[in-house]
């Protein structure tokens, strides 16, 4: 059975000689939101980078819509419908909001045109001619999400969208992610703030130092705060 949108099997990724991911397997179903949790340095970003081909895995299989994509170039994987909202947002600071969106137009047709994205995220429409470097952190996060949407992804890889943002802005960002979920966009959501991510996630994985240590329902994990505490350390439990 290969009904899942994304199927990662026995992923092994190294930086140089150091093994960062060991036999990580996970799936994301169509329209599903899956949280990937873990402490700082656990390998969450590396997992996303491996899926997108930015840090090609040493071994393992990555199937997207049934196609093997491990070993392909990042632009090819992106064009299959994998959107990336990177950690730290990685805006093109010297370019305007609208130019940042135009960069992601890569010929993948679908409902998300730039006009639709601006309609959906009206704040960006107001800031269309402002340089991305002069946007606030929250505005940049929205632009990073909008930019990923322009390529009409079936799966969004979202890395720490709450990082460095105030609580109100975080709420707004998560509201947008929730709306995307309602729209049928699948999301693999990396967060350090576990309880926040578990609120909108259907399922969750927890990474600890290269290996998966939890895999199951998000609601169960959320209900069991003691478990979250032991898996992710006390300090990470907020909200």
């Amino acid at each position, binding site marked *: 059975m290969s009904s899942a949108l994304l199927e990662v099997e026995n992923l092994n990724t190294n930086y140089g000689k150091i093994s960062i991911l060991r036999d990580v397997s996970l799936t994301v179903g169509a329209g599903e939101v899956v949280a990937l949790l873990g402490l700082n340095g656990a390998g969450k970003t590396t997992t996303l980078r491996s899926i997108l081909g930015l840090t090609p895995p040493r071994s393992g299989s990555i199937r997207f819509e049934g196609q093997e994509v491990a070993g392909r170039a990042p632009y090819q994987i*992106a064009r299959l419908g994998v959107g990336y909202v990177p950690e730290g947002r990685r805006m093109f600071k010297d370019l305007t909001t609208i130019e940042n969106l135009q960069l992601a137009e890569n010929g993948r047709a679908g409902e998300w045109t730039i006009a639709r994205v601006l309609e959906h995220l009206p704040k960006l429409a107001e800031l269309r001619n402002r340089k991305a470097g002069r946007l606030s952190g929250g505005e940049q996060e929205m632009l990073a999400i909008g*930019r990923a949407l322009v390529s009409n992804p079936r799966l969004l890889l979202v890395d720490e969208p709450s990082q460095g943002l105030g609580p109100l802005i975080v709420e707004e960002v998560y509201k947008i992610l929730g709306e995307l979920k309602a729209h049928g966009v699948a999301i693999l959501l990396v967060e350090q703030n576990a309880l926040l991510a578990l609120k909108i996630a259907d399922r969750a994985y927890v990474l600890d130092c290269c290996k998966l240590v939890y895999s199951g329902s998000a609601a169960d994990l959320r209900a069991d705060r003691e478990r979250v505490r032991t898996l992710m350390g006390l300090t990470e439990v907020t909200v």
Partner: protein
Amino acid sequence: MQTARPGSTIALRLAAIVVGLGALLAIVFLLSKNGQVSTQLFNGLVLGAFYAIVALGLSLIMNLTGTINMAHGSFMTLSGYLAFAMVSRGTNFWFALIVAPLMTVIVGVLVERTLIRPLYQKEPIYSLLLTFGLSLMAEEIYHIIWGANGVPFSPPPSLAGTVGLGFMSFPAFRLFIALVLLLMIAAIALFLTRTRFGLRLRAAVQDSEMIAALGTNTQVLYMVNFALGIFLAGVAGVLAAGLLGLNPTSGNTLLMPAFVTVIIGGMGSLFGSIVGGVLVGLATSLTTLWIPAASEVAMYALMAIVLTIRPRGLFGEEGLFG
């Protein structure tokens, strides 16, 4: 202080500089009773336009891929020789002016795809050494095919003679060169600021991995960007052959001033390359007028002054050179 900012501001600032310089020079021309000064100013501008075009190509390539193309001058020379070969077989000069650079671009792209591309992941020293080696080889090859001495390559009769502009008359070929080089600078600025491809190029200079993650094939960007730099070198090469002569090292004599231009203008700034080129050209030709013996070192003196006051060059990015 302002830093060079890509985007529509490039075009604006370019226009401002061109108008400003034009006005300044017009005043100098009009005030100066000394025909020699005006002539040297004009020559300096033409020379500066060459430096600017060569520096622009170097910067385009360096900014995106970190490759310091030591073979840039050899591509200029190649284009000059190809044009010479065509014209001496009876081909029309105008045709050669377009086709020779295009043929040079084909050679350039082949070199980039096969030899330089594998070095993109490595330290810049590797591609620097490779292109340096290529330039030495190219010099020998030109030597073997076209001989050690210069070959005669003169502009077409329609560009001989002078053109009077009221207050003084200019050699037509130099005026033509200035015009073509200016047009090319404007075309590049428009391409970078007004096209989808130019937008991606500017973005990739900042973060090429992110551009790839957004679905752009960065290898195509690298290739076209290199081709663009070589095309500029190619056109400059044909024009320079007609103005400054053509021999196996003639392109390389423009390379050193072009590097000085990049450093004065500021690494990472295309705009800086243009301003730097004009400054180096003017400094060189004006020194020729007053202290001929020092004309060769004028640009280095200028570089020393600029770097003392502003270590990152006029419009360079902070942090590259302190």
